[in-house]
């Protein structure tokens, strides 16, 4: 089956990201396809490229990137939710006249319409919230 996940919780603050990653791994092992993880609400903080967790804790940012690299899962971030929270890629930083950026590939800023599309096109959308 084709799955998508909606992640609404910030990393480390809540278990949402951990649960989503664990579920992603299990569904892939069972032979399903994970099309996309969509980050909304506080979930957009998962895209923070500078995350530097202690060595003895899971590195959630790297885990998301690995999901993309190994399984082609898209990592889409709601642009409206991201901008107000300071999660900007290079293009948005330029557009807003700011130096530096906090989001980079494989995370992509995109419209909320992508979530709606996904919700109708995949077989299962599962939400992980704080």
């Amino acid at each position: 089956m084709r799955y998508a996940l909606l992640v609404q919780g910030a990393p480390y603050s809540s278990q949402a990201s951990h649960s989503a990653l664990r579920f992603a791994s299990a569904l892939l092992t069972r032979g399903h396809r994970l099309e996309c993880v969509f980050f909304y609400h506080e979930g957009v903080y998962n895209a923070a490229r500078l995350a530097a967790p202690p060595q003895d804790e899971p590195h959630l940012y790297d885990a998301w990137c690995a999901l993309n690299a190994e399984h082609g899962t898209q990592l889409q971030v709601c642009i409206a939710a991201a901008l107000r929270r300071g999660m900007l890629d290079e293009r948005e930083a330029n557009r807003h006249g700011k130096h530096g950026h906090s989001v980079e590939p494989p995370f992509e800023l995109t419209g909320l319409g992508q979530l709606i599309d996904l919700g109708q096109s995949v077989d299962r959308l599962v939400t992980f919230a704080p």
Partner: protein
Amino acid sequence: MSSHAPATGDLLVILRHAPHGSSWLREGLDAALVAAAFGQSVTLLFQSDGVLALARGQQTGPLGQKSTAPTLDMLAMYDIESLYFVEDALASFGLTQQDLQLPASGIPAAVIPELLAGHKLILTF
């Protein structure tokens, strides 16, 4: 209304949070508007504290935080006309249909499962 079969459609957005205290309500309404703009049929269910989103008289916050009340007024323009609230939830705050800023249909809690069954996608906020 509660004697009629509730709406069916592509997306049911369940709004459970009060205005102003968090961004859940605003972000839930945004999802509904975007889905409608994409041509989907969208239903809103106001449940629990979420029924207060419908209350008349909401204002801008003390720092100028936008109220969600004007967003509610936009729903009709986006053809989102299936608005339901849970009767008991509204009553628990001492409010009646007359206190609401726009027409919405009260349903008994027992009808909620039917509403969920009738939509392809359900998002909770």
